[in-house]
């Protein structure tokens, strides 16, 4: 008892000191413009954030995508994907009956879920594709589409969900999105020698035809699509894993 009290005092003291340090350093922040001057003065596409994300620092965005992919993969592993040994999971999930229950939402939710979902999906596609000219992009659009899926899933339950993103379909979408990003980078390397080079034109044809005045769109919309597919698949996969017990049962070889 005495030990735990002194430990708590020590923990709170260290948190206090660390927090004070963090707050002091943030309080006295003075932002130097530095390299940002370059980013804001050279126009690549109208959305400067998109230009930084996909052109100047495209490789970082690739890394962020891979964080998501990796997290989804590890979440899958937690639920029994490709383990070396399933004894523990069998112990935990072995006895329970696998059933997905409908929590019984009101008709308002059920009636609105499908139209809202459909419109959200269309909006998500628009946000993904307009990433280079409007605020938005792959991450936001993908999150919108997966929000539509989660809405339908929550309203109708897993079994009667009107939007059927199967696990396999989501896996393919995710891999396709990531591979699109990685291989477009390689394409840039083949054409110019630089990985993730923003290809302005191939034999005189721009890769993504756009109205005049937009700027050097290059491959940015395709990168956006790749990111969007991957985010949509990743978030939906995590939802499927958290909502449904069937995947665990399948993984541990039962049903």
């Amino acid at each position: 008892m005495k030990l735990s009290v002194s430990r708590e005092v020590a923990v709170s003291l260290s948190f206090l000191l660390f927090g004070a340090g963090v707050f002091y350093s943030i309080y006295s922040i003075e932002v130097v413009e530095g390299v940002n001057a370059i980013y804001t003065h050279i126009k690549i596409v109208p959305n400067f954030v998109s230009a930084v994300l996909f052109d100047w620092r495209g490789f970082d965005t690739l890394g962020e995508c891979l964080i998501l992919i990796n997290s989804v993969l590890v979440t899958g592993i937690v639920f029994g994907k490709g383990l070396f040994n399933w004894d523990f999971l069998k112990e935990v999930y072995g006895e329970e009956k696998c059933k997905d229950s409908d929590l019984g939402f009101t008709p308002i939710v059920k009636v609105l879920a499908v139209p809202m979902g459909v419109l959200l999906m269309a909006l998500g596609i628009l946000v993904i594709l307009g990433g280079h000219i409007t605020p938005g992009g792959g991450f936001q659009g993908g999150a919108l589409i997966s929000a539509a899926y989660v809405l339908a899933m929550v309203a109708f339950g897993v079994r009667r969900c009107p939007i059927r993103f199967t696990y396999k379909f989501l896996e393919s979408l995710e891999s396709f999105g990531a591979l699109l990003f990685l291989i477009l980078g390689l394409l840039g390397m083949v054409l110019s020698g630089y990985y993730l080079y923003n290809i302005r034109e191939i034999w005189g044809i721009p890769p993504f035809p756009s109205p005049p005045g937009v700027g050097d769109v290059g491959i940015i919309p395709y990168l956006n699509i790749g990111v969007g597919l991957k985010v949509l698949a990743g978030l939906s996969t995590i939802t499927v894993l958290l909502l449904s017990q069937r995947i665990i049962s399948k993984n541990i070889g039962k049903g």
Partner: protein
Amino acid sequence: MNLLPLIVVVPLITAVVFSYIYRSKYVKPLTLFIGFILLVLPLLGTYGPYFFGGHGIVYIGTIPLVSGIVYTLNPLKETMIFTLMLIGSIVLVLSTRERELSGVFTSLVLMGLASVSAVILTEDLFNLYVFYEIAAITQAGLVILSGTEEAYRSAFRYLLVGTMAGSILLLGVGLLLSATGSLNIGDMGRCLTVNPLTPTVYGGLLMLIVGLAYGGGLPPFHTLKADLYARAKPFVAAILQAYSKFILIALMLVVLKLFGNLPIFHTTRGVLIALSVFAMVFGTVMALLQEDYRKLLAYHTVSQGGYVALGLALGTPLAILAGIFHGINHTLYKSALFIGAHILDKIKSTDMRKVGGLLLVTPTLAFLILCAKLASIGIPPFNGFQSKLLLAEAVMNANMPELAVLMLILSIGTFLYMMKAFYLIFLRPCSEEQLREFKDVKISKYYILSLGLLLVLCLFLGIYPDIVIDRLYPVVEDIGVKWVLESIKNS
């Protein structure tokens, strides 16, 4: 054409593919194939900077600033990546002997290899953070793969602390960005030396050190790492310790490059030396108490991480060289020890109370593990001796003889527990029927071969350490902190 990014990109592409085809029956041959491809990758790059997306140096006024992301390759990084890929390749080849191998394991190992090589190669702080995070998640995933309750527990604990430590590192990167206006480590270091230091920079440094301690397994996060190594399958622990060792080296080099020439480094150095000494002492003491061979090795890894960090924290060129060289050596012989533990796990169990008398069963294995143990203690002619000698020399040159004494005492501790483990596993008498039971287990030739390969490398580096040292020294001399040497000369 400079093919440097392929070192990172090829493992990433294959990782994505493997995570998609994880149930396919071709996973085993493909894993074997990729294992050999990995060995070619470090040779692809050419020395010098590589600008991603073709965004090179831009001048604002007269100040040159790097506008995009830069990777650089030099002999130091090449050596580190080669060691990493070698260990990765060996682990992938060994994994094909597992019955339950799935593409998920291969995918995670490749993801980790790619991210750690990116952390080593990158000259960009945010890029480093991104790949550091991938490596952290990968390590947790690799531990969960072994599927026991303890593995789940330790991996979740690691991830929970990891979210905190990762966010703190990101905040630190943000603070440093706001103070310098750039993310390129060279530009940032130059900006920091010119401008007066603000509390923001101090905050950034503090957070960078928190991230370093988490990624490299220094206190106060050492117990998490030790738990992680002990709970994973032993041959997976071999790659885990390689990851964290190289992340430790890379982040230490970043701290040195950013803050090495600032007056603040004097305090930083003290903090880092204290952290590493604590890791050394703690690891050795805890390893002495262990009954389980895996845990013993796990704590040994923590203590050796302390040695590596000590060398880098001292900041003199010789000490940095010794630290990095010890890191490379440690990765090699520790992988051998973990693979040995894996064989032990196959035979019976890694609990040292349950095995004994294995010398009669597998004399080759006993000999190889004895060699690896001698290397880890630091006995000539193995590589551990060379790097520890170098480290002791560096410590004496830096005017800190007390640390040399401590290292000596800790080496005796290491000798004690390593020999205790050897006695309990291989020499302790045991009953006839138990021996017969042990003899029934067939050990794959792959394991013995890979152990042999690693030990040949250890022996080779022990006899000709100059091959590595000569490659590293010119690079290290640039990074080394000038004022430390001057202050030693003056005193």
